[in-house]
């Protein structure tokens, strides 16, 4: 099926071909008849061998031969000579078949089946493998078979590692050899990971020595032929092994350590409403923990929360992950703060202690061993309801003239202090990073010699970014250079333009969120002529930045109002960490489907959403279909599917995203999906809605 020319090289003799086909059909027919009737005579078995030589993919013939072998072995009653001759015959048939097609799954499996009967010398098998690997060093069947034989022979990992070295020495352009090398090393490195000081496995020295040696080895591959990809992925893995933090650590939180938070006691943003309305922050005050890697085991035993108003309840911590119910990088819970009538204008000291008792574990199995404590103050203010407070529910408009630059010292929480403490200090990072920084530095200097080609630019960009990741408390350096490198790559390798663009966006956001000055310059008060700015939340405006991917969420947990309009986003994955978000603008981006808005299902405080001017409904292919909780991915029970919303079969994505939201304002205009019936569907789905596409809802 592969690699045959369309116009045959020689003129085809139609009659001869037809005759050949007829003959083959006759043989197959006879074979199937033997098989059906369980005939295992010498002639019948030979027929199957003949067929397999012509067509090793005839899987039923391999099955037949196994049945014949079983019967013949039973008959000869373990007379060693007979057994050997029977099994030898099978190995011969496999070899002949492999000569026809050395990628035949059936042939390789038959050989394994025979070998498991305890036959054939292992040296012979390795010899056969060497022959095959000489013919095609990338044949993964041969590599798999080698692993099978090595396990049977109980060959040591060191010997197999040496074999990969030999293959690499023969030809640097052998991705399969690099892969197998990484396979052995990663299994041994995981032991090294847990204890740097101890000698982990015989033959292996400390982690940085291992890595330094591997870097030298793979560098040769990268420098020999800059277009050959064989070493690229191995090098990336080495980089990851160099900078990855072994320990799960708390990176940031909401609230931030030392903060002073005023909570209006009355239901603030929905004063005009009736009883059963949505709970703003005073009712469900979120606590968010952001780790450096995915962890499990965050619960009321491993995280204790104590505060003045005797909340002696078991808080339920939830992982903010769409499909994983056990682990996540970000965990959240909600404190239900009692009515202010009883405790007006009091301050409460809250203490959150993370990991003082065992139980939090990273998904790679490393226990959380660096407990942290976050203390903050809560002030509950009893604000009398003003008359005409209904008009606070004016429609939010995301226009430039509605925003005024933030002036420090207003009634907001002390933003500057908050921004100073966004990243949690973890001592463990400073001690371990010396050898890591040295390796990164050395590699960067070496790869600067390769800056005229794609892999050189990409590697230097990654190395500089990796360097910053080792120093999370310091301002990132080299951002400008990294951004330039990605811009150059967009021009140099236009097929992968969007890959470089997405990475460029991530670095840009790192830069923007790296300093409080930078963040403050993007904070605005929302000002509407009918409302005072008193108490209106601060808006972080990250619009018009041409960003195509979001990141740096650990720096943004404090954000309540966010403007991401006029960018190139098609996903908001990660935004679920921003538990305080109540107003969000995503207009003029590249969102293609409601399934891309999965993260919004976690934002319980969200009231105002603008997804106008996007591409929802314009695409036949949904690229977030399986990154979304629905019956298709078995992550939502079919009982959640309310058959009353019959028309929602057409709008099932919108249904699942929006159904539990308490939105008061929604903008969807400018998407192909919008229509009168869609708007009717939305109004039905969202009873709390007051504004839809700028029009008041009845």
């Amino acid at each position, binding site marked *: 099926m592969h690699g045959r020319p369309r116009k045959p090289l020689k003129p085809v003799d139609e009659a001869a071909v*037809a005759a050949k086909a007829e003959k083959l059909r006759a043989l197959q027919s006879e074979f199937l008849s033997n098989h059906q009737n369980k005939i295992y005579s010498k002639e019948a078995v030979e027929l199957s061998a003949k067929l397999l030589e012509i067509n090793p993919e005839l899987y039923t013939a391999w099955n037949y031969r196994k049945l014949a072998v079983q019967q013949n072995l039973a008959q000869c009653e373990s007379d060693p000579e007979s057994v050997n001759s029977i099994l030898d015959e099978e190995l011969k048939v496999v070899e002949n078949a492999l000569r026809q097609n050395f990628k035949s*799954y059936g042939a390789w499996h038959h050989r394994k089946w025979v070998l498991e009967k305890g036959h054939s010398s292992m040296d012979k098998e390795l010899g056969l493998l060497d022959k095959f690997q000489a013919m095609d060093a990338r044949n993964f069947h041969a590599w798999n078979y080698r692993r099978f034989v090595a396990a049977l022979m109980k060959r040591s990992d060191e010997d197999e590692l040496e074999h990969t070295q030999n293959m690499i020495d023969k030809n640097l352009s052998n991705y399969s050899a690099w892969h197998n090398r990484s396979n052995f090393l990663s299994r041994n490195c995981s032991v090294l990971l847990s204890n740097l000081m101890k000698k982990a496995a015989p033959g292996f020295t400390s982690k940085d020595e291992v890595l330094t040696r591997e870097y030298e080895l793979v560098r040769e591959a990268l420098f020999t032929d800059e277009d050959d990809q064989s070493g690229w992925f191995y090098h990336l893995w080495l980089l990851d092994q160099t900078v990855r933090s072994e320990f799960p650590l708390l990176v940031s939180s909401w609230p931030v350590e030392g903060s002073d938070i005023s909570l209006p006691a009355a239901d603030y943003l929905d004063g005009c409403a009736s009883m059963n309305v949505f709970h703003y922050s005073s009712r469900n005050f979120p606590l968010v923990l952001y780790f450096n890697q995915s962890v499990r085991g965050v619960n009321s035993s491993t995280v204790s929360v104590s505060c003045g108003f005797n909340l002696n309840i078991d808080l339920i911590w939830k992982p903010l992950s769409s499909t994983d119910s056990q682990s996540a990088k970000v965990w959240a819970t909600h404190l239900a703060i009692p009515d202010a009538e009883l405790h007006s204008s009091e301050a409460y000291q809250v203490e959150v202690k993370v990991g003082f008792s065992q139980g939090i574990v990273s998904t790679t199995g490393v226990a959380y061993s660096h407990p942290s404590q976050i203390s903050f103050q809560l002030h509950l203010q009893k604000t009398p309801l003003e008359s005409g407070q209904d008009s606070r529910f004016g429609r939010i408009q995301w226009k430039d003239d509605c925003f005024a630059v933030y002036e420090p010292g207003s009634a907001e929480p002390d933003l500057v202090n908050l921004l100073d403490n966004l990243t949690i200090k973890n001592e463990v990072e400073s001690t371990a990073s010396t050898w890591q920084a040295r390796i990164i530095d050395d590699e960067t200097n070496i790869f600067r010699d390769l800056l005229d080609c794609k892999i050189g630019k990409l590697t230097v960009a990654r190395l500089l970014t990796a360097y910053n990741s080792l120093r999370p408390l310091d301002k990132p350096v080299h951002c400008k250079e990294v951004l330039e490198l990605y811009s150059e790559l967009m021009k140099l390798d236009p*097929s992968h333009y969007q890959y470089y663009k997405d990475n460029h966006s991530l670095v840009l956001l790192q830069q923007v969120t790296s300093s409080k000055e930078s963040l403050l310059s993007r904070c605005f008060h929302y000002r509407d002529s009918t409302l005072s700015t008193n108490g209106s939340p601060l808006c972080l405006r990250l619009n018009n930045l041409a960003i195509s991917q979001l990141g740096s969420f650990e720096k943004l947990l404090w954000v309540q109002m966010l403007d991401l309009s006029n960018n190139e986003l098609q996903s908001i994955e990660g935004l679920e960490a921003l538990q305080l978000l109540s107003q969000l603008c995503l207009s003029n981006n590249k969102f293609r489907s409601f399934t891309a808005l999965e993260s919004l299902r976690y934002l319980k405080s969200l009231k105002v959403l603008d997804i106008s001017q996007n591409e929802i409904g314009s695409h036949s*292919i949904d690229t977030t279909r399986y990154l979304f909780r629905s019956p298709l991915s078995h992550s939502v029970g079919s009982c959640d599917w309310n058959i009353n919303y019959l028309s929602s079969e057409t709008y099932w994505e919108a249904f699942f995203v929006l159904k539990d939201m308490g939105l008061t304002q929604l903008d969807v205009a400018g998407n192909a999906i919008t229509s009168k019936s869609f708007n009717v569907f939305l109004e039905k789905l969202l009873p709390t809605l007051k504004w839809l596409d700028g029009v008041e809802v009845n």
Partner: protein
Amino acid sequence: MGELAADKHVKYILAVEKRKDNFESAVLEHLRMNGAYWGLTTLDLLGKLDAVDSNEIIEWILKCQHESGGFAGNVGHDPHILYTLSAIQVLALFDKLNVLDVDKVSTYIAGLQNEDGSFSGDIWGEVDTRFSYIAICGLSILKCLDKINVERAVNYIISCRNVDGGFGCTPGGESHAGQIFCCVAALAITGALHYVDKDLLGWWLCERQVKSGGLNGRPEKLPDVCYSWWVLSSLTMIDRVHWISKEKLIKFILNCQDTENGGISDRPDDAVDIFHTYFGVAGLSLLEYPGVKAVDPAYALPVDVVDRIFFGK
């Protein structure tokens, strides 16, 4: 560059179905069930499924079923999980899953799960992540996913994950686009895509696009139209398909057409076959090529067929 010669491809598929006089069809007789799935799904994607006699095909499919509940590649051959899935998929296309004894088929598939969560292809015990995908996909279509131990099945797939973000056929096996498709799709269907590092795997996958615009299956190999499916559907499921040049890939696929006699080949000017015709058209579907119905990247069936199964009355 030209356009998609849809009518020619339809004629080609209908002709191949009937041809018995060439050597190729004799040699591929044992996988006719797969061929039926490739050909018929392509016809459906091109809006021409009604050009075949569904009753005749269904009758033949049922003749391929064994006592064990599994289906063979053709009449008289042995059952195997590969052909069992193709049979289920073809019946789904015709909306005739009800002709199946669902309990029997699902028991056959579920019986092939091993202790470690992996799946064998048949009673002879070959293990491969391809079979994990097949079991999960097939049982999901039949709404019987609870007949297997899903957690163990997922754990086995994870054990085949490599440091480059990809997946191999068994633990330690090299990443290969075909295996990656199987593992990613299986994780998609079981709601377990959080085990995939999308950025890492996305880069590995997008680097399959070579200068000619075609996709290969692993580093330093030749491009092939069938990878337009394996790589592209994987990229689609993890939302990284924008990391390749769609225009260049469309051009590559269209260049692999035989615009005179119909059919698509692995590479330009090579011999065409049903396998590559299907993957070329399915690839074009994922690239939103006009005139081709949308295909579901995990089930490898038209989206309207999948939606009918999960959301239909």
